[in-house]
């Protein structure tokens, strides 16, 4: 079992790599760059090796580049290709990110992040019901849910960026303005506030119910009202591919405020279009159009018990 303890050579090598990144490669750069690099390293998919592949094509002085090359020649360096060790590597620089965040007054410190996330545990959870005039099939429900989850996730991310200046994922915004919260806190926030399918225990065939947090559902209400309105005024299929925010200005404005580089801006816009397209055909069938409705979820009753 000795290979699994953090004393083993491969863990030492990973720590050595992390130390080099922090103490030699990044320390003299601006706080903004440091955060950007750490966020990117953390979010790059795959093994440690894939992260190093990104690193070596960045502007790095030759002497430091050769240190990275040396580390890759280390006898234990095949551990860089071990998928099981990616998360260990990510965790090893978590503390550096927190330390930098704590030094920047415009960002939320770790303790503030903690308090904020815990407070979201008590946010109102509502049920959100879609009604249909015909019984929906299983595949249809699955596809509808998939697109609704996507839209909720996008609106959820925008909501926390706009209201609390926090997020779980770096996407090109000013790192000195918005705080990427620590991984476990991000996981917690996600669990407290995510959208969930509400199990159909009573064999209902004409409605689909989800649960989610009230402020995000309120924003979804606006999007669905705009979707219905646009539909009612147009005999053709709603064309949102050119400028979706003509129809959904609220989401567009929140996104514009972030001043993202085009690549990130377009990625989010495409996801938004995809979600709306996926929902619109289900949301309105023939001439019948109905708003989903929000109502108190049974979970809130727990607070009274």
């Amino acid at each position, binding site marked *: 079992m000795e290979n699994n303890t953090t004393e083993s050579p491969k863990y030492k090598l990973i720590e050595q790599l992390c130390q080099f990144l922090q103490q030699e490669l990044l320390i003299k750069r601006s706080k903004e760059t440091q955060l950007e690099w750490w966020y990117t390293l953390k979010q790059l998919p795959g093994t440690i090796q894939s992260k190093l592949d990104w690193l070596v094509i960045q502007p790095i002085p030759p002497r430091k580049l050769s240190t990275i090359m040396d580390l890759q020649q280390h006898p234990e360096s095949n551990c860089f290709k071990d998928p099981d060790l990616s998360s260990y590597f990510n965790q090893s620089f978590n503390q550096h990110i927190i330390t930098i965040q704590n030094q920047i007054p415009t960002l939320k410190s770790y303790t503030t992040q903690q308090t904020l996330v815990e407070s979201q545990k008590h946010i109102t959870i509502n049920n959100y019901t879609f009604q*249909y005039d015909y019984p929906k099939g299983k595949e249809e429900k699955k596809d509808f849910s998939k697109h609704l989850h996507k839209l909720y996730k996008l609106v959820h991310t925008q909501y926390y960026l706009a209201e609390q200046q926090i997020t779980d994922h770096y996407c090109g915004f000013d790192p000195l303005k918005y705080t990427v919260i620590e991984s476990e806190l991000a996981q917690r926030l996600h*669990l407290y506030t995510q959208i969930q399918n509400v199990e159909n225990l009573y064999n209902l065939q*004409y409605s689909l119910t989800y649960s989610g947090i009230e402020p995000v559902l309120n924003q979804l209400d606006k999007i669905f009202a705009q979707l219905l309105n646009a539909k009612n005024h147009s005999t053709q299929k709603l064309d949102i591919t050119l400028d979706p925010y003509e129809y959904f200005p609220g989401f567009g404005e929140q996104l514009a405020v972030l001043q993202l580089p085009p690549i990130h801006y377009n990625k989010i816009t495409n996801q938004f279009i995809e979600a709306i397209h996926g929902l619109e055909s289900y949301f309105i069938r023939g001439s019948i159009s109905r708003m989903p409705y929000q109502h108190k979820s049974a979970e809130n009753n727990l607070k009274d018990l």
Partner: protein
Amino acid sequence: MNNLSINILDQELQELWDTTTTLLTDGWLEAQTLHTQLRILYTVIFTPGTIGDKINQFKNYDIDNKKQQLIDNVYKNLSTEARTNLLVIEGFILMLFAYIAGKKLTDNELIPPFVLEEIKQEISSYTFISHLPIYEKEADSLYEHLNNIHNLLREIYYLHEFRIAESWKQYPVGQYRILEMHQAQILNSKQAFKVGLNTPEDQSICFYGQSWILELMNQNFKIGLKVAENPDAQYAGDYPIDVYYELNRQIDYITMPQEQRDKIKTSFLNSIHQIQNIMDTCLIDTLPTIKKFDY
């Protein structure tokens, strides 16, 4: 209800509540044995479809012409909106549950503390490590089938150990207790199998659930999936249900129609098969790890 069901006329709702009250209280139901009363009410509550489909079930029992007509009137006068509206249906179901509680048809007192205990159980994360990225298609499918197994094991466990269920699937009414609507909804939502915060390119994927259910899942996966923890599993993913000895025994032990039993077994085996496919695609070869999460 007001603004939530704008299109529903007060008059048609009033007619529905009056008819339901008559059906429950004018004596014919009370004249039945306790078990028959419960069977009638559960049949109505759990019949698939609209409120019309549910209330129409009363007609299969020995009710007089006047009540037959009341039901026909309600059925005829209710708009589609009212017949399919979730809040109207839930209101109707709650009336039936209130009757069950009021007449003490089941021992309801034990249930709230039971639910409170169960929702407080420890939560854990449930993490699969893969050697290839788990993309959206596989992640969605993995969640769907894990969720199915999670819910199935949970349902069987409660039926087998406590003779309690959230919904009625023809279990003998005297032997198995059905949770009241709000209790069932709370238990269900608190024990939901949840997706963690994952990105498609991660070499791992994590879910969350109550630890004891996750343990049960791993006990079964160790039997049926090709994982390092199960060295003999050469045909894994396609074993017959008998090899899941404990689960199979429990399913056979619970009193339910054979058709229902077969459906549960087929659904379990299908999900195992699908999970094995995803594990093969993403090169997952170990059981997911269960780690306590201070929720």
